[in-house]
């Protein structure tokens, strides 16, 4: 009887959580949702498909900004990409929330209205619809690959060994096999968990730990070549790992990644990129590159090498953004960042010179950190100094002597504890099964539900989305922005004038990062005058400006021109990332400076 009630409660919870999975968008629902938002103001929100996946699903692009496309393309812009691995549906939900927030605020809030008149926002809510759709599949199966058939294990067969739902619970989880060949033991602290046996402690491995399924191709590896595919966040050229099983046959090999690459190339006004995925450079400020070595004497090889880390001059901006991010999330301290070879975010910085932020939208580690932070807050509020002091202190001491493995084991326990408290249904209890590959051996299926480590419990989505929306709006306000501070024309005599133009950057970021200069991908800001070259006694019709720092940094250009029969000269300032500005030089024979119109 007891067991039956337990089972009933368990099934109810499963049903509830499955029902709440509707808070995450299926691809078709996502499309419809975006279309319905766009319909509310087609002048402001534009939706189109930029690619089709191998599974024949569309990749949507949303453009938010007022006015004609030609104008939007000249404004400073921010790009937000989510669902790049595809298994983080929370990312897509956050993007939709943000688009809705921008739209809501557009009419009501002056600052937001101005933002969307002078900035363009590009959003790709989900780059990998094939992977995301597996959240809704039967059985539910988490992976970060698209549906392109790939020979992941290089054995000449394609997609021949995928997972199977052996316990028929509609989920692909993990299995543990009692086997002397195994490397794992049950965690003495909690036998739901497995930890690697530490030979130095005399621990003897007794369990194998594999994904749920059978060895279809009899190569003694389980489920190593399932359906699909390529992980888009390994498919970009910076630090690309050739021959990695999920990186594709070569860089930018997939229709989806190619569409994103071409989009970015055709929209050079993008100055900031935010990518939601597994990589993260906001939880912790990344390391700077050591100062560049002097170029080698061998002229032939040119001495240029790939940049190993963020340029020192760009690092302060990453630090500031990281601080804003942690503040928005409620994190009191830095955590570990995550980097992978071949990510989209790295390509955007290291090869294209844009400020490129990467965030993992949610993880159990973040959840644990936030709840620990709130606990210490509560404790200090309660004034319990003796209780709160010592354990922290002793913990810090022993932290230094712990190995990486021990830290990992501890983190695993903390996370399980968090799930027990906040989302107990996330852990599937271990169930014994008969396994054809291990006759006569004890085999159990269980572990966390798929997607439970990359997506928060449904009840928390709204709150988490709100925090990200807050951060994203702040990010959009950091773009560089040029304006004309002063225009002066002094008549020197006989229609010869000395002209001075001051251009300022009222945004936060500079008109180009150092990496933008190094890569030469961010073109210099230029002033173009509507006056023939012959009329310039000093200076020329097109002049390039140096990089202009943000927060009202300024650059000045001077000319000496000969301009008979001209009352005014029109000019334009064009910046790749900081927008455009126009002005007119009034030529008056008495010397007086003019403020810009």
């Amino acid at each position, binding site marked *: 009887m007891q067991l039956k009630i337990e089972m009933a409660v368990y099934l109810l919870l499963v049903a509830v959580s499955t029902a709440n999975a509707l808070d995450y968008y299926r691809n078709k629902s996502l499309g419809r949702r975006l279309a319905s938002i766009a319909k509310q103001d087609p002048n402001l929100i534009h939706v189109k498909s930029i690619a089709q996946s191998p599974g024949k699903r569309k990749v949507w692009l949303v453009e938010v900004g007022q006015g004609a496309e030609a104008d939007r393309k000249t404004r400073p812009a921010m790009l937000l990409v989510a669902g790049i691995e595809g298994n983080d549906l929370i990312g897509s939900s956050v993007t939709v929330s943000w688009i809705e927030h921008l739209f809501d605020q557009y009419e009501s809030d002056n600052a937001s209205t101005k933002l969307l008149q002078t900035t363009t926002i590009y959003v790709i809510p989900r780059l990998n619809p094939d992977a995301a759709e597996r959240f809704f599949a039967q059985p539910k199966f988490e992976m970060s690959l698209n549906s392109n058939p790939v020979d992941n294990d290089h054995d000449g067969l394609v997609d021949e060994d995928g997972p199977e739902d052996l316990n028929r619970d509609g989920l692909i989880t993990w299995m543990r096999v009692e086997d002397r060949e195994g490397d794992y033991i049950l965690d003495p602290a909690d036998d739901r968990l497995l930890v690697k046996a530490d030979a130095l402690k005399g621990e003897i491995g007794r369990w194998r730990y594999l994904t749920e399924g059978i060895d279809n191709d009899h190569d*003694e590896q389980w489920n190593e070549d399932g359906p699909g595919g390529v992980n888009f966040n390994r498919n970009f*050229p910076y630090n690309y790992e050739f021959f990695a099983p999920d990186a594709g046959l*070569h860089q930018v090999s997939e229709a989806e990644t190619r569409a994103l690459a071409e989009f970015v190339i055709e929209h050079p006004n993008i100055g900031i990129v935010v990518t939601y995925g597994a990589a993260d450079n906001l939880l912790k400020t990344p390391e700077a590159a050591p100062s560049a070595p002097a170029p080698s004497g061998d002229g032939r*090889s040119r001495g240029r090498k790939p940049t190993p880390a963020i340029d020192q001059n760009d690092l302060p901006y990453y630090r500031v953004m990281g601080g804003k991010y942690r503040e928005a999330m409620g994190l009191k301290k830095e955590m570990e960042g995550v980097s992978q070879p071949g990510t989209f975010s790295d390509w955007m910085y290291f090869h294209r010179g844009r400020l490129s932020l990467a965030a993992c939208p949610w993880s159990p580690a973040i959840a644990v950190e936030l709840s620990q932070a709130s606990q210490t807050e509560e404790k200090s509020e309660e004034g319990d100094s003796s209780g709160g002091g010592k354990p922290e202190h002793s913990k810090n001491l022993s932290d230094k002597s712990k190995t990486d493995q021990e830290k990992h084991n501890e983190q695993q326990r903390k996370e399980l504890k968090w799930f027990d408290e906040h989302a107990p249904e996330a852990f599937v209890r271990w169930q014994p099964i008969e396994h054809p590959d291990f006759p006569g051996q004890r085999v159990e299926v269980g572990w966390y539900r798929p997607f439970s480590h990359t997506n928060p419990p449904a009840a928390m989505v709204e709150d988490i989305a709100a925090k990200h929306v807050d951060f994203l709006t702040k990010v959009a306000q950091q773009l560089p922005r040029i304006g004309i501070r002063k225009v002066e024309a002094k008549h020197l005599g006989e229609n010869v004038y000395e002209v001075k133009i001051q251009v300022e950057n009222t945004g936060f970021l500079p008109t180009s990062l150092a990496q933008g200069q190094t890569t030469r991908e961010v*073109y*210099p800001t230029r002033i173009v005058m509507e006056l023939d070259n012959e009329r310039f006694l000093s200076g020329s019709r097109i002049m390039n400006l140096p990089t202009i720092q943000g927060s009202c940094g300024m650059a000045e250009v001077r000319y000496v021109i000969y301009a008979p029969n001209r009352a005014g000269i029109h000019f334009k300032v064009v910046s790749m990332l900081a927008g455009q500005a126009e002005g007119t030089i009034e030529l008056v024979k008495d010397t007086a400076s003019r403020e810009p119109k």
Partner: protein
Amino acid sequence: MNQQMGLKKFITLWFFLLVILPPARISLAQVGERKPKADDPAEHTFPALGASAEQKVPVAWNRYYDHAGLGAILARLNEAFPDLTKLYSIGKSSQGRDIWCLEVTARDVGDPNRKPAMYIDGNIHGDEIQAGEVVAYTGWYLCHQYGCLEKVTALLDDRVFYLVPTINPDGRDFWIHGGQFARSGLQPTDNDRDGLMDEDDCEDLNGDGFITMMRKKDPQGRFKLHPDYPKYLMVRAKPDEPGQYVLLGWEGIDNDGDGRINEDGPGGYDLNRNWAYDWQPNYIQYGAKDYPFSQPETRAVAEFVLAHPNIAASQSYHNSGGMILRSPGREGGPMTDQDENVLKTIAERGEKILPFYRSMITWKDLYTVWGGEDDWFYAGRGVLSFTNELWTPKNLYKTADRPSDENEAEFVQYVLLGDGAIAWQEYDHPTYGKIEIGGEKKQWGRIPPSFLLEEELHRNMAFALYHADMMPLLRISSIEVEKLADSLFKIWVAVENQRLIPTRTAQDVAHHISPPDVVSIMGDEFEVLSAGRVIDRFFKKVQAVKRRPHRVELDTIAGMSAAHVQLVVKGKGGFTVTVDSAKGGVLTKNATLP
């Protein structure tokens, strides 16, 4: 007596006048009007060694062809040799020109899709045009000599050639039809970062059909006419000597008013830096574009190569310099000793076939290349690959040393009778004022003159054919059966590779690029109990396979060696042994259990 003598003389004279002279006079009259018949000379030929005796598709190999011309040659070959050729497009260039591929093999011998294949292309840099002719000549030669020369017949029976004369047809046509800088593909690119694309190209200001150089008489100039070759050469004035001219660069004007001339012509990238292995962006490697295979031309070739896993050898043609280049393109790039030994052996043969050509490692002996075609073929696909830089001026005088500028001027004057030089003409330039325009025809320097072109084509082809000949050639050389007991047998299969190149290179094996070679056995009335690779055939050491004993996987069958496989079977009757190698082909052999 005197009367008789007089009569004789009289008769002789009249005999001469009446009988001998008239016919002679008639023949003398006809000599001026006789001519030979104006037949087609091709019908009265005696073959020289080299080209085939019969030429079903006559092609003049002492001139160059544009994209349509090369296409026409391939089309005629395809029409004339339907049993040896297939012709198709592997994709289109930026401007929509087809990239043609002529597939050459004996279509009725073996399976054309499974024979070891050699991929040959040329002209990735648009101005390196003779590469196109080398590849077309290869197709022409192979088709015509099949059935005439034993070696060619064997090559086409056992191998397949994928011949792609030009993989940059846009650049080729642009250069041939008047352009000057055509190394790049022709997708519009903003070279000078001013927001405009391709806005300032060279111009043929004086309308002579060539883009040449501009110079201006200037006492402060540091150049002067060569005292011995004033028509052809300029030299630097000595440091303490006044000069005569300042050099102004290539013919053109400042189209976009930015103070620079010809700084942003069509294109502006390098297709041979757009390949995926060891690719680096523009600021590290000029011309790489935004990501590998971003360009339709390189992507078309990559897709073709990925779809043809039987490709076991690759050759590209460029100009110039007289080089046989191999990977790696950058210091520290992938290359194993085993693979390099094979490449060196083939390249050394090449140095003998191609006088004055040198076998070189790209990064070490030439310069660093990130994202080049050779590296993708070798490091990315495990295929041994060469790039030849065609033509060296050492060919002008057949000397081991490069001819001097004066030697070259002499060549132009005395061997070419001035063809190649363009006399300097006056011109009134909007920026520079009174200048002179002239210099060399663009056919001078990197492409051979007509009478040296065919030699270049044939010798380079011969090198590629040698490389092709070295591709794996597998034979099931023996099947030995030993009876262990009633219905229990031990079978040893020997598979030999009669050529130098292994079925899978070391790079291929290390990264599992192509599937392993499989030796399998099938019989109606038997069962394989165990199977293994023979590690030592004298001491009979066998490494058993763990699963699926009816098929034994081999990492590779090395060049000039044999692999042995042991199968222990129970049963009776006949059986078939099959060897399936991606680059070695498929072979079967039948045998019977005793």
